[in-house]
């Protein structure tokens, strides 16, 4: 499988020039790629475009040559930087997981989710605990690509290493593609095979 950005352009403001201009990228399954670059250069926007949360103004995002299907489970799953913003505050954690139908429940144990947390509301868990739920629900059986947008910046290094080890193991087992957006070069070189600097590919 391959995920492809084909000459995509995107901007939030019609009066200004494109934030992302003519970007073409290809990601293959089993590949681990880091996207780095200065803040405000559109890394998170690119993540949203690749996972279908935003549509490009020009160009196309293709999965195996076909556009992403807006219905059903998206095979490209995005993990946000702020877990507290990505979870319905009025759901209990059990409902959050139930939304991800067909989730392999053995992942919960691997990722360190305690049985007791399932009855709680999101505000009763810390950022690190919430992020485990976000990672778990992104690992649906249909998921072929995983995009981690600053997934672990708010975590202490021990929690960070724990979460990444589970993700890397799962990505390897299922031969998924992994796209990592980060400011931490140590993390990028530790986790990924290939590093792309967004400022070097924008506008050509």
């Amino acid at each position, binding site marked *: 499988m391959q995920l492809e950005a084909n000459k995509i352009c995107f901007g939030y403001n019609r009066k200004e020039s494109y934030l992302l201009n003519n970007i073409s990228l290809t990601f293959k399954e089993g590949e681990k790629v880091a996207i780095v670059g200065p*803040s*405000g250069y559109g890394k998170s926007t690119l993540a949203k475009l690749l996972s279908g949360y935003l549509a490009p103004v020009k160009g196309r995002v293709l999965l195996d040559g076909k556009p992403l299907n807006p219905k059903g489970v998206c095979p490209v799953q995005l993990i946000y930087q702020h877990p507290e913003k990505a979870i319905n505050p009025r759901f209990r954690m059990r409902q959050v997981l139930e939304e991800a139908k067909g989730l392999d429940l053995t992942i919960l144990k691997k990722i360190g989710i*305690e049985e007791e947390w399932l009855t709680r509301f999101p505000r009763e868990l*810390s*950022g690190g605990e919430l992020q485990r739920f976000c990672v778990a629900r992104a690992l649906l059986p249909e998921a072929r690509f995983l995009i981690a947008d600053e997934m672990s*910046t708010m975590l*202490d*290094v021990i*929690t960070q290493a724990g979460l990444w080890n589970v993700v890397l193991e799962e990505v390897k087992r299922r031969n998924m593609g992994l796209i990592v957006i980060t400011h931490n070069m140590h993390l990028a070189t*530790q986790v990924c095979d290939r590093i792309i600097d967004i400022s070097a590919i924008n506008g050509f």
Partner: protein
Amino acid sequence: MNLNHIKSSTLLEIDNLSLSFQMYKGFVEQQQLEVISNLSVTVHSGEILAIVGSSGSGKSLLAHAILGILPENATIKGTLRYKDRILTSSYQEELRGEKLALVPQSVSYLDPLMKISGQVIGHKDKSKRKLALKNIFKRLELEEKTENMFPFQLSGGMARRVLVATAVIGDAELIIADEPTPGMQTDQALEALAIFRKLADEGKGIILITHDIDLALNFADNVAIFYAGTTLEITPPKDFLDGEHALRHPYSKALYRAMPQNGFTPLAGLQPYAGTITKGCPFAPRCAECMEQCKKEIPPMRKLRDGYVRCYYAT
């Protein structure tokens, strides 16, 4: 800088601080939830003290306790001294915003209906601060037009830099920066910390709460390592650079091993929850070297090499 600094330059002294919240358990029954216990740290003028450690270990609560901005259901035990005077709530009110400044953790602390320039300048020494603002914005790579923007028009990294500007523009003697850098790119984060370093070199005290150990090591004079509401170790940053053997507490060593460039090794188990913290060492359930004694009482802080540690067996 060494830890046995002369007493006269002590800015902030926290001795045996405990912090608990009164919570409802069911409808009527109430309980005290202890979130910080037996915490002692000292900040001297001219020093940057970095506080690192696990998420949920009470780092931000400590900052709020120093400033006296905790919610009403919080109870504090132990003593906080600022310049050898006990920090009472009226003294805190006097110092807050003048001598004590905070860089808050969340960008939601900015007033959404107020222009950035007004929020940074505040309502004192306006003309002087207007000039200072230009200078600070330039150093933090904030464009001039940022001054007239509202918070919703800023990116995450820009809003963080504005928060840093609000704290460094005045004449605060002690600045508490609670996670000032996430979302900033590396060179901006370095610049923000360089500003803190310069302020410290001019004789101010800085408490830098952060998860970014790499960054803290480049600028801090001392690093305090927090776990489950208490300090387990205070170390000069060079021991983190020297490697695992130079660190004292088993938790610090685990932190070191978990850094991406040092093996990326996680540690099994979880930090004990607030309310379930026992009398013994909070790290005992996850510690490979744990003995009977560790489960019974928390080891006292003792001096070891150039730092301090709370462990019976650390060498």
